């Protein structure tokens, strides 16, 4: 009977020691990301009237699968919004508006230069002034387009790098799918699970993957309905230029279904790419509108003339020289707005006159050009390049540009607002998850005290039984 008591006290001491070890492990991991605090599951032993003491049934990480899923999903959507907002803010920096350095200011100077020419049509400096102002306009448009191009290239390479890195993470998950079931069968799999959680959180934030954990501890990782990791099998992922992800059955395998729009950072970057492509299209439309409007004014049959001089004789010529060359292939690709080199070399070819019977001091066509700044171009310039974006011919070129900047501004500001909101949600979800799984030193101290007290009590029981036995022996 007394041996029994001592044995029971011993199980208590052992259980409390395990408990204190768990407290110690929790405190050691107080700052470890994705660490789940431990719960020591104790159970009473024995069936008799007294029982056989206590045993540690298991040590388990404390988590809530709902909160974990939520934290992963909100984390992915925060990463998505934040990536998109960053891409958009950078794109916006290509347009220093409103300022005196933006395209609007260049356009205004350009239109004014036509008035100056209209007032002094035979003044070579005024013609040069138009060329210089046009040069600034073309450079501004070109450099904005090139900045957007450079940015979309950098975003594409970010997507590529992220997806390549995620391929490695996926392989790690597959490896752990083999080691975790083994660890769970033989002992404590918690550290491995913590580690896998960290990897999967990164994957969720990068790609917006979802997961399902199986009974045996293995985890399947999904992206858009396709499994990227199942047991020990890993699919091969790769990204295309639009930032969409293609999934192949293992390396060298066939492609499964079409491409998937990823979530997370990659998805946000891809959405940003689509925005940039859209900006490129709209900016191209504005630039081609400027080019078309100016060129058609300069070459309008019977309305545009330039005069050449030979001795004291002036000859009128129908304006045939365009000022701008616009080249832009398809929507979304960069365009180029350059000046006609023939006109740059010989500004006399600018058709400033409105009649062939007046003379070189006729500046009426140049004056009409200046008015295009505010006059809607009713004669829709032929050959509008893009179907999307502001329609050519509806507004003055300035108005088209202003609409574009307004649309850009709202895109950026709504992406920023979405990013802030998503970040708040993610933070709340993480806080909720942490509230369940995180380590709280105060709580750990309380746990420690209770284990310590129980340990001391069991030890006291052991000593008391021992004393009792000794006094019994002495009495014999």
């Amino acid at each position, binding site marked *: 009977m007394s041996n029994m008591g001592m044995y029971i006290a011993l199980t208590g001491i052992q259980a409390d020691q395990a408990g204190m070890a768990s407290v110690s492990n929790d405190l050691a991991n107080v700052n470890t990301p994705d660490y789940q605090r431990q719960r020591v599951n104790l159970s009473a032993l024995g069936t008799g009237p007294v029982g056989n003491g206590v045993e540690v049934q298991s040590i388990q990480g404390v988590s809530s699968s709902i909160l974990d899923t939520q934290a992963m999903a909100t984390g992915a959507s925060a990463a998505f919004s934040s990536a998109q907002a960053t891409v958009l803010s950078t794109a916006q920096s290509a347009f220093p*508006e*409103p300022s005196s350095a933006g395209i609007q200011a260049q356009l205004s100077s350009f239109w004014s230069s036509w008035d100056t020419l209209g007032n002094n049509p035979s003044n070579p400096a005024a013609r040069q002034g138009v060329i210089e102002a046009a040069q600034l306009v073309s450079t501004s448009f070109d450099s904005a387009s090139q900045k957007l191009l450079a940015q979309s290239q950098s975003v594409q390479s970010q997507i590529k790098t992220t997806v390549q890195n995620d391929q490695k993470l996926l392989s790690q998950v597959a490896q752990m799918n083999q080691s975790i079931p083994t660890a769970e069968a033989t002992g404590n799999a918690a550290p491995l699970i913590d580690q896998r959680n960290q990897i999967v959180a990164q994957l969720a934030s990068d790609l917006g993957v979802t997961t399902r954990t199986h009974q045996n501890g293995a985890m399947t990782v999904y992206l858009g309905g396709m499994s990227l990791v199942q047991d020990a099998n890993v699919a091969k992922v790769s990204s295309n230029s639009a930032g969409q992800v293609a999934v192949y059955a293992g390396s060298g395998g066939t492609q499964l279904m079409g491409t998937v729009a990823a979530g997370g950072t990659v998805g946000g970057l891809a959405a940003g790419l689509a925005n940039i492509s859209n900006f490129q299209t709209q900016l191209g439309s504005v630039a081609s509108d400027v080019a078309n409007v100016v060129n058609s004014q300069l070459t309008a049959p019977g309305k545009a003339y330039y005069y050449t001089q030979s001795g004291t004789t002036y000859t009128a010529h129908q304006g045939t020289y365009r000022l701008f060359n616009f080249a832009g292939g398809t929507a979304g690709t960069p365009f180029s707005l350059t000046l006609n080199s023939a006109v740059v070399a010989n500004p006399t070819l600018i058709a400033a006159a409105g009649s062939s019977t007046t*003379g070189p001091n006729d500046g009426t066509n140049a004056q009409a050009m200046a008015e295009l700044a505010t006059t809607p171009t009713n004669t829709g310039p032929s050959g509008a390049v893009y179907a999307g974006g502001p329609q050519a011919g509806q507004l003055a070129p300035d*108005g088209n540009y202003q609409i574009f900047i307004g649309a850009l*501004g709202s895109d950026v500001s709504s992406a920023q607002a979405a990013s802030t909101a998503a970040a708040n949600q993610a*933070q709340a979800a993480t806080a909720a998850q*942490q509230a*369940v799984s*995180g380590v709280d*030193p105060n709580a750990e101290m309380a746990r420690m005290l209770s284990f310590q007290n129980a340990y001391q009590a069991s030890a006291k029981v052991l000593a008391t039984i021992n004393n009792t036995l000794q006094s019994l022996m002495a009495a014999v």
Partner: protein
Amino acid sequence: MSDISARMTPSVIDTQVLTGLQADQTSIANLAEILSTGNKVNKPSDNPIAAVQTLSLQATLARSQQYQANASDGMSRLQLTNSTLNSVLSQMQKIRQLVISAANSVTTANGLGPVAAQVAQLEQGMVSLANTTFGNEPLFGGASGSATAYAVSVPQNGTGGSAQYLGAGSAPVRTVGPGSSVPAGVANPFNGTTTANTGTAGPAAGTVDVFGVLNQLVRDLQSGNAGAATGTDATQLDQAITQVTSAAGQAGAYYAQMNTLSLQAASTTQEVQMQFSNVQSADLAKVSSDFAQAQTTYQGALYAAAQVTKLPTLVSFLS
């Protein structure tokens, strides 16, 4: 941020404190940008609607300033036109007086000689006034590239003399308002013909060629034809004076018109500048006080953060 009932772990507290501090810093940075630029809208995303408004006002402002520049250029051209035509008119009045006094006092044909010389000299003076240039353009030559507006040869010894208008097109205009342009001068106020004219008829029926009339007068004076000089010539001279006076009057009317439109452009400029500053310029007093407040908030948050992270745990009380 989280429910009161939720367990607060140090990492949750840390994250919340950090997020709060970062939000404070962002708002301080935004206010600092406004303070340093003086502008409410520094990026299109700050306020897309205000950004578009600003751009549109910027364009309107540039345009109305250009209208003012056009008007002041046109007005100086019109002033030159007016003063030149007025000088011409005073020469013509002198010629008229010479002719009238000659009709009253001179009886012999030879006596007309000095008068003829005087008139011829005055006519020469008028020709050089008629060829006044504005910049590198002949003031009265319309849009023509010719260096002079009129080619006039004064008769000698009662024969010869011709006048020709070398210009072409109407007088240049200046755009002084949206869709409104005003001529910045008058073309061919002396009603010359585009082919060398040895007679007195102007290009349109019932008009006279001013220099043709003067040439005829000089010829008659030189050849002692007092009757013609004081008769038909004097009548035609009166018509010529009327024509030039009316041209000068027209220039004056254009000037007044341009001046009015210029004032309108100036008031538009002023109005747009005011709107521009309403949309674009920050209320510095308000922003400064917001900035000070944001700083105070930030300092408070920093203090709180320092205190929170210093909070003892149970560890401190267990010995």
